[in-house]
C-alpha cells in the first residue's frame, strides 16, 4: 500500500516535472521561432545577399536558402531555388575560375579569402561583387554547407578605375605639355628638309616617299597639338551662357566641311533651355571633337542630330542633356569601353591621335558633368553629355560685349 502511494507520488512529481519541461520547451520553441523570424527579417533587410549552399560528398551542391537580393543581381529567391545552376550561371564568364577556386579552397582547407568578381544582373548589366564564404559543420565535424555573403561593390570599382584613369591623365599631362613644346621645333626642321628635297630631287618615286614623310610630320604635329590641349590643367573660366549658342557657333565652324561630305545636321533644341555655367571655349572644343568623330564615322555621308533638352539625373537633379547622334558605322563593345582612354584610336591610318574623346571627357568632368557613349556596330553612335543646371531663371542678361 505504502509502495503504491510512493509510486503515485513519484508519478505525480514526474508528471509535473514533465509538464514544466514541456512548458519550458514551448517557451524555447517560441523564442527560437521569434529569433528565426528576427533573423529572416534582418537577412531580408540587408542590401547584401546572404545564402546557404550545401556541400555533398565534398562537392558544392544546391542553394538551400537565399535572401531577397534583387537590388544586387535582380533575381528573386524562388528563381535560385528553382534553378540550381542559376547562381553559377550569373557569374561573369571570365570570373568563374576565381569563384570555383574559392569554393574549392573552402572545401579543401576549411577557409578561404573573400574574392571580388563580376556578375551579370538579370537586366544584362555587369555588377562587381565581393563574396565571403563561411564554413558550416555538422556535429561530427563534417563540412556540410557554407554561408555566403555577397556585397555590391560596383560603385567602389567604378571610382577606383576613375581614380586610376585620372592619375594616369594628370601625370601624363605634366609630361606631355613639355614634350609637345620640345617636339614641334625638330618637326619644323624635318618638314623644311622634306620641302627642300621635293624641289631638289626629280627622281621618280621619290615624290611619293617625301609625301609620306610629310604626312607623318603633320600627324606628329597634330599629336603634339592635341597633347597640349589635353594637358592643360586650367580650371574652366565659367560664365553663364546659352549652350545652344555655343553649339551653333561650333557648327558654323565645321559647316563647310560637313556639306562637302554630304553630312546633314539636324538641330533639335527645346525652346526653354536653361542657361548653364561653362567655359564656352572648352565646350566648343568638346563639340568640335565629337562632331569630327561623328563625321569620320560617316565617310559616305549621313545625318548628325544634336538634341538639347531639360532632364533629371539619377539623383533627381535638374540637368541639361545634349545628345549627338550619328548614322555612322557605330562602335564595337571593346572599342566603346576604351573610347575615352588617352591614345586609344581606331583611326591611326587617317591621322587619329586617340586624344579627342579623352580631351572631351576631361573638359566635361572639369565642369562636373557626365559624358558617355551608346553605340552598336552598324547602328550609329550616340554621345550623351549631361551638365548641371543652376536653376532655370534667365538671370539678368549678362552682356559681355560679344
Amino acid at each position, binding site marked *: 500500500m505504502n509502495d503504491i502511494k510512493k509510486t503515485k507520488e513519484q508519478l505525480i512529481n514526474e508528471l509535473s516535472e514533465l509538464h514544466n519541461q514541456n512548458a519550458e520547451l514551448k517557451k524555447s520553441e517560441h523564442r527560437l521561432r521569434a529569433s528565426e523570424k528576427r533573423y529572416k527579417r534582418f537577412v531580408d533587410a540587408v542590401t547584401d545577399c546572404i545564402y546557404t549552399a550545401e556541400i555533398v560528398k565534398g562537392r558544392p551542391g544546391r542553394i538551400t536558402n537565399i535572401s531577397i537580393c534583387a537590388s544586387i543581381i535582380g533575381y528573386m529567391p524562388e528563381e535560385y531555388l528553382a534553378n540550381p545552376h542559376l547562381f553559377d550561371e550569373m557569374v561573369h564568364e571570365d570570373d568563374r575560375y576565381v569563384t570555383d577556386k574559392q569554393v574549392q579552397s573552402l572545401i579543401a582547407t576549411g577557409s578561404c579569402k573573400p574574392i571580388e568578381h563580376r556578375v551579370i544582373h538579370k537586366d544584362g548589366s555587369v555588377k562587381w561583387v565581393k563574396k565571403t564564404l563561411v564554413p558550416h559543420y555538422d556535429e561530427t565535424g563534417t563540412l556540410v554547407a557554407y554561408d555566403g555573403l555577397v556585397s555590391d561593390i560596383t560603385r567602389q570599382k567604378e571610382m577606383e578605375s576613375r581614380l586610376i584613369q585620372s592619375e594616369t591623365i594628370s601625370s601624363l599631362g605634366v609630361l606631355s605639355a613639355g614634350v609637345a613644346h620640345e617636339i*614641334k621645333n625638330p618637326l*619644323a*626642321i624635318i618638314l*623644311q628638309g622634306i620641302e627642300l628635297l621635293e*624641289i631638289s630631287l626629280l627622281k621618280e618615286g621619290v615624290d611619293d616617299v617625301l609625301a609620306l614623310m610629310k604626312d607623318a610630320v603633320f600627324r606628329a604635329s597634330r599629336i*603634339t597639338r592635341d597633347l*597640349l590641349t589635353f594637358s592643360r590643367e*586650367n580650371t574652366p573660366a565659367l560664365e553663364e551662357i546659352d549652350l545652344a549658342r555655343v553649339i551653333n557657333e561650333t557648327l558654323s565652324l565645321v559647316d563647310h566641311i560637313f556639306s562637302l561630305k554630304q553630312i546633314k545636321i539636324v538641330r533639335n533644341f527645346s525652346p526653354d533651355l536653361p542657361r548653364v555655367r561653362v567655359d564656352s*571655349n572648352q565646350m566648343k572644343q568638346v563639340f568640335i571633337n565629337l562632331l569630327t568623330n561623328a563625321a569620320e564615322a560617316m565617310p559616305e555621308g549621313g545625318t548628325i542630330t544634336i538634341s538639347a533638352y531639360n532632364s533629371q539625373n539619377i539623383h533627381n537633379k535638374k540637368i541639361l542633356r545634349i545628345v549627338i547622334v550619328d548614322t555612322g558605322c557605330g562602335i564595337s563593345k571593346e572599342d566603346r569601353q576604351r573610347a575615352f582612354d588617352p591614345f586609344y584610336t581606331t583611326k591611326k591610318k587617317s591621322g587619329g591621335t586617340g586624344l579627342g574623346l579623352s580631351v572631351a571627357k576631361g573638359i566635361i568632368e572639369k565642369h562636373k558633368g557626365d559624358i558617355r557613349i551608346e553605340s552598336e556596330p552598324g547602328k550609329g553612335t550616340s554621345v550623351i553629355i549631361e551638365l548641371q543646371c543652376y536653376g532655370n531663371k534667365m538671370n539678368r542678361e549678362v552682356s559681355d560685349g560679344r
Partner: protein
Amino acid sequence: MGGSAIKKKILIVDDEDSFCALLKLNLERRGPFEVLTTSNPHAVVKLVKENQPDLILLDILMPEMDGMTVAANLKGNKDTADTPIAFLTALADEEEVRDIKGKAGDNYILSKLTTTEELIKSISGILGSAQI
C-alpha cells in the same frame, strides 16, 4: 606674286640654325625672296637697321630672348618700328594661338608647321597689305 624681278628681303630670326638655313633655301628657291637669317635675338635691331628687310619672321620661344621682347625692341626704335613682323610659331593649339594673338598686337602670326607653299602665300599677303 607676278613676275616681279625685285626680290623681297626677309629676315628669319630663330634659335635653331638648321631651321633658318633650310627655310632660307626653301623660300629663295620658290619665290622672289632674298633671305637673311640670325639665331641671335640680340642682333636683330642692328640687322634690321642695316638691311631694311620687307618682313621679319620671328620665332617666339627662344631661350636667350623671347620673340615678344624682340618685337617690342623693334617697335621701340624709330628706324625699325615700321618693318612688318610675323611671329613664326611652332605651336598652334587653339588656346596658345588665342594667347599669342592677345600679346601679338598688330603683328602677324604664322605657323612653322605648314608647307612652304602655304607660308609663301601668307607672306605675299602680308607684303601686299603692307605696301598699301
